[in-house]
């Protein structure tokens, strides 16, 4: 088993190189980029009086050829893509992700500045999703086909069917704009720094309520129904009958025997949540004006801020690859039949 996970960890390296090569090459192929952006900015600035005339980004009359070459050299566009990729990779290895072409800040700082916000929402979304779905799924399985079961099914499927940005807008309109129960957006209030410790916690919490609901509502259906069906399958299994035949009461048979077996399908996806923490949802972040990684990634793509795009890709692809391994570990933890790598006594 250990050798299996070592092999999986080593496999991260070629996968990572593959993913980054692909995206790096794409950034060279797609039209637009930092130089074109600068040219257009310069053209706009220089053509203030003659704003009606269109500019030609290729023929850029506002910059001299020498200046253009300097810019290309500055961004590494003067070299072939393979060379600049490996230059970039070499810097990544010493944790230098370059500078943002938009803010001129180091990419690493740009990302880590927003990381706490994204991790905060990611972790709470995770806790909320599993904390609601597992108990709800269990209860629904035991109360199968009762009014409670039908009603909650309707609710979670409604949440699943409505796109999360619609939920976000609805929540914002009803609870913030009309009822004024919650703030209109942001991660904290403007006067956050002047608040005392407890007030700070309260402030962050009240800002988090609506975005968290918008984040998690759509996922409830999947995990709740997965948990319910999985538990019902196991409740009908023969080993539960064996447990009851031993003289066990039904409740203990559920939690002592059926529960762990029904966690197996849930555990399969657990590790992947680690990458959800980072990706977030730029739509929800935009609506609630939260400065997280999702929004940063989206904006840097639109603005062709490639160092930031690549930096987010580095962090998220590594997290995703580790997440996959974590899922495997989770499955192996709950299901003793799973033996990775060794040929003996498998499934």
């Amino acid at each position, binding site marked *: 088993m250990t050798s299996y996970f070592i092999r999986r960890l080593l496999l991260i390296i070629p996968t990572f190189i593959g993913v980054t090569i692909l995206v790096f090459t794409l950034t060279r192929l797609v039209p637009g980029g930092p130089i074109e952006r600068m040219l257009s900015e310069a053209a706009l600035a220089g053509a203030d009086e003659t704003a009606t005339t269109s500019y030609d980004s290729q023929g850029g009359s506002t910059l001299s050829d020498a200046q253009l070459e300097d810019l290309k050299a500055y961004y590494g566009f003067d070299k072939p893509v393979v060379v600049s990729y490996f230059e970039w990779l070499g810097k990544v290895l010493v944790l230098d992700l370059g500078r943002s072409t938009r803010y001129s800040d180091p990419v690493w700082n740009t990302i880590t500045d927003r990381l706490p916000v994204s991790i905060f929402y990611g972790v709470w979304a995770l806790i909320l999703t599993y904390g609601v779905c597992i108990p709800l799924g269990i209860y629904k399985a035991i109360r199968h086909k009762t009014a409670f079961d039908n009603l909650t099914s309707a609710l979670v499927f409604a949440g699943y069917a409505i796109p999360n940005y619609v939920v976000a807008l609805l929540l914002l309109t009803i609870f913030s704009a009309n009822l004024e129960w919650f703030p209109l957006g942001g991660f904290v209030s403007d006067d956050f720094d002047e608040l005392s410790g407890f007030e700070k916690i309260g402030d962050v919490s009240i800002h988090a309520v609506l975005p968290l609901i918008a984040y998690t509502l759509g996922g409830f259906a999947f995990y709740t129904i997965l948990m319910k069906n999985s538990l019902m399958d196991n409740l009908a299994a023969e080993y539960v*009958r*064996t*447990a009851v*035949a*031993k*003289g066990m009461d039904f409740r203990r048979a559920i939690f002592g*025997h059926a529960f*762990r*077996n029904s966690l197996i399908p849930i555990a399969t996806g657990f590790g992947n949540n680690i990458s959800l923490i980072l990706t977030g949802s730029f739509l929800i972040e935009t609506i609630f004006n939260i400065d997280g990684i999702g929004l940063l990634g989206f904006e840097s793509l639109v603005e062709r801020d490639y160092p930031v795009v690549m930096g987010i890709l580095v962090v998220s692809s590594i997290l995703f690859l580790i997440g996959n391994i974590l899922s495997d570990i989770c499955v192996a933890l709950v299901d003793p039949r799973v033996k990775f790598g060794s040929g003996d006594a498998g499934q």
Partner: protein
Amino acid sequence: MPILEIDQLSIAFDTEGDVVTVVDRVSFDLEAGETLGVVGESGCGKSVTALSIMGLLPKPAGRIQGGDVRFKGESLPSLAPERMRDIRGNRIAMIFQEPMTALNPVHRVGRQLAETYTLHQGELSADVVHRRCLGLLEQVGIPAPEQRLSEYPHQLSGGMRQRVMIAMALASKPDILIADEPTTALDVTIQAQILELLRDLQRETGMAIIFITHDLGVIAELCSRVVVMYAGRMAEQAGIEPLFAHPVHPYTRGLLASIPRLEDTPKTLLTTIPGVVPSIEELPSGCRFANRCPYVKDLCSREAPELVSASPGHRVACHRWREAEAGTLENWGS
């Protein structure tokens, strides 16, 4: 007094908008220490009868419709759930057909074995329980028991798993063991070993066994008395020798005639009972075997035969039992 009395037991299942009686007024007794065979084909109600004794009918679809099950004179269906849990797995234990799925795949064998003790003898220390579990595995003939206790079910063979199930059932020295086709899923040599084991264990512990099977050969090897069931009703009940020597009910005769024998002419067709069991939704009002019976007469399709005593200890439900008893019915298949 018999240790277990099944008295006019009827069991009903709810199907789509309908109630179906799957077991109809079944009555038999079990004496302490004896082995009673219950034989019949799939769907005849033998397993459902066994489950109802344990109070394990699938809920909410199945329920006892009428009659009673008495254990040492005490009516089991009317017991409070807590009291029933004291009996279940403690005084009456059960083993099932599929040892592959009857054990929890994610718990170690030792933990599943120990559970019977923690449920019924909570006062025992962990140390004592561990030693008893070891003893049980030895008793059911599992080599290297110490190692097996820390293994998971998927690491054991089918025969081993059934031995673990038997060990689990024996843990609290039950008065009755209900074995629901325990050897059906095993291959023939393992089957013989498990039967041998059950016989030895019965001799050691003096427990009574209800052995449910569709295999008359197994019945002959293990049981002292037999109940033959057909389509939810009892067809015949007799001691093992009278039943095999002088079967009265046409269904029993058909079953016995269908067993291939060594002295049969090779490469000829096997004897079978023609026709199929009537579906549970369309049971005839008369004798349920009427559509397949070579001795059928008008009365059979009009009126269901009552279970009557043909001779002491020999009961049969057939309108023509007197002729069969007197030997004036022609042989099966001739």
